[in-house]
Structure formats: structure tokens, C-alpha cells
């Protein structure tokens, strides 16, 4: 499978690769929100502990 065959995907390259990139995008979005949420939770906890202890 040469490179240009992969890209062209039998003429449907544009559609196939956009579909797959959107999938990776959605996966990334989910992962990103999970990690950002973890950071924010850590911040609130640190703030809470500093307040109460």
C-alpha cells in the first residue's frame, strides 16, 4: 500500500480521513475534559484543605 493509495483511499480519502480525525478529536476532547476536571478538583481540594486545616 503506497502512501498516495492510503491518502486517496480509493477516491474516498477525504471522507474516510475526516471521519477518523473527528473520532480522534472527540476522543481527545473527552480525555482533555477529564484531565482538566482533575486539575480543577485538585485546586478546589487544596483550597478547601487550606481553609479548614
Amino acid at each position, binding site marked *: *500500500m503506497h502512501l498516495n493509495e*492510503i491518502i486517496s*483511499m*480509493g*477516491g*474516498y*480519502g477525504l*471522507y*474516510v480521513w*475526516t*471521519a*477518523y480525525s*473527528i*473520532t480522534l478529536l*472527540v*476522543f481527545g*476532547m*473527552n*480525555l482533555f*475534559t*477529564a*484531565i482538566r*476536571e*482533575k486539575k480543577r*478538583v*485538585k485546586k*478546589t*481540594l*487544596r483550597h*478547601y*484543605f487550606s481553609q479548614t486545616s
Partner: protein
Amino acid sequence: MLHWFNQHFISLKAFYATSSALLPWLITAFSLCFAYGLIAGLFFAPADYQQGDGFRIIYVHVPSAFTAMAIYAVMAVSGILTLVFRMKIAAICMSVSASIGAWFTFLALVTGAIWGKPMWGTWWIWDARLTSVLILLFLYFGFIALQSVIPDQQSRDRAGAIMAIVGVINLPIIHYSVIWWNTLHQGPTLSKLAAPSIAPDMLHPLLAMIAAFLFFYAVILLLRMRNQIVLREIKTQWVKEVMSHAS
């Protein structure tokens, strides 16, 4: 039996511990299935005689639609557990799964539209399954909107549980009425998206991708549930310890 469950899953502290043990396994399982499914699906599976390589979008569209439905089922079950057994962990699982499920439903719709363009010339076809997925997206938005408006945590969990249960009762009814509606208006053609009797070496990557999507859901679910657990148990001692040596 219930005690074992309580030990590992029901109590928030135990769930936190079990999830940290489970997460590495789930991540490896996801990466294996995803790698195999992606490579086999994109490069090694034979092209479809009708749709050529365009059919490879199936390896993304069908798993995301399947996972979207599966996540709603998980939400409904946790809804029942929240209402009947007052399980906090089920409430957390339910509200966290909602946003992940909405993402997957959106993904299923977008990939369905992208698949539809080269095959049938239009971005959107009122096919029975695609329409059911669209309605599923509305159910997800309804659930998330309801939960975002209720201030009190306990009422938010229970109201969401009821909405999930109402949704899961109506989903099969909606699905079959949409199929009935489809045959009424477009005649009994085979639904365009019905997976053709798929050759085994086309099928294996699809099963692997479905497994990969489900594992990914499990990973994100556990990650986000851990955040919610820590937030809800903020006053307990074990959260303090976990957070102190973690940060």
C-alpha cells in the same frame, strides 16, 4: 455476595481504590483493541465491492452508535440503582456517563453523515437508525439540561434517575415507531445503513473497534467518576490522605 460488592464497588472509598487498580488494565485493553481495529480496518480489511474504501467509515460509525446506546443503558441501570437502593456511586456513574454518551451520539451522527455523503449524495438521510440516534441525542441533552438546573445534589441525582428510566422505557418504542414510520413513507427498502452480511475479516476489526470504544468509555468514566467521588467526599479523612500524597 452483596458484601463483596460493597467492599469493591458500592462504597465510594472502595470504588476509588478499585478504579485505580482497574484503570491501567483498561487503558492497555483499549490501546490494543484500538490499534488492531484501526490498522486492520483501514488497511487490511478488503474493500467493499459496492462502496470501495468508503465503507471503512463503518469502523467508526457503528461502534460510536453502539456505545452511545450502551451508555444510555448503563445510565438507566444506574438510575434504577440510585432510586431503589439509594446508591451514591450509581448516581455519580449516571451523571458522568451522560456527557460521554452525548459525545458518542454526536460522533455517530457526524460519521453517519460523512458516510452518507459519498454513498447517497446527501449529508443526511432519514434512515430509521440514524433518526433514532438523533432522538437519542435529544434525550441526552434533556438529561444534561435537567441535571444542570437542579441545585440540590440529592434531588439532582434522583430527578436524573427518573429521566434516565423514562428515556430507556421510551427508547425501544421510539426506535420501532421510527422504523415503522420509515417503511410507511419510503416503502419497505432495506435500511440503507444495515450492515451487509459482512465477511469475517471485515467483521473482526469492527468487533475490535466496538470493544475499543467501550474500553475508552470505561476509562473516561472511571477518571471522571474519581473526580466526582473526591468532590463529594471532600470532608472525609481518606480523601485528605489521598490528596495529600497525590499532589
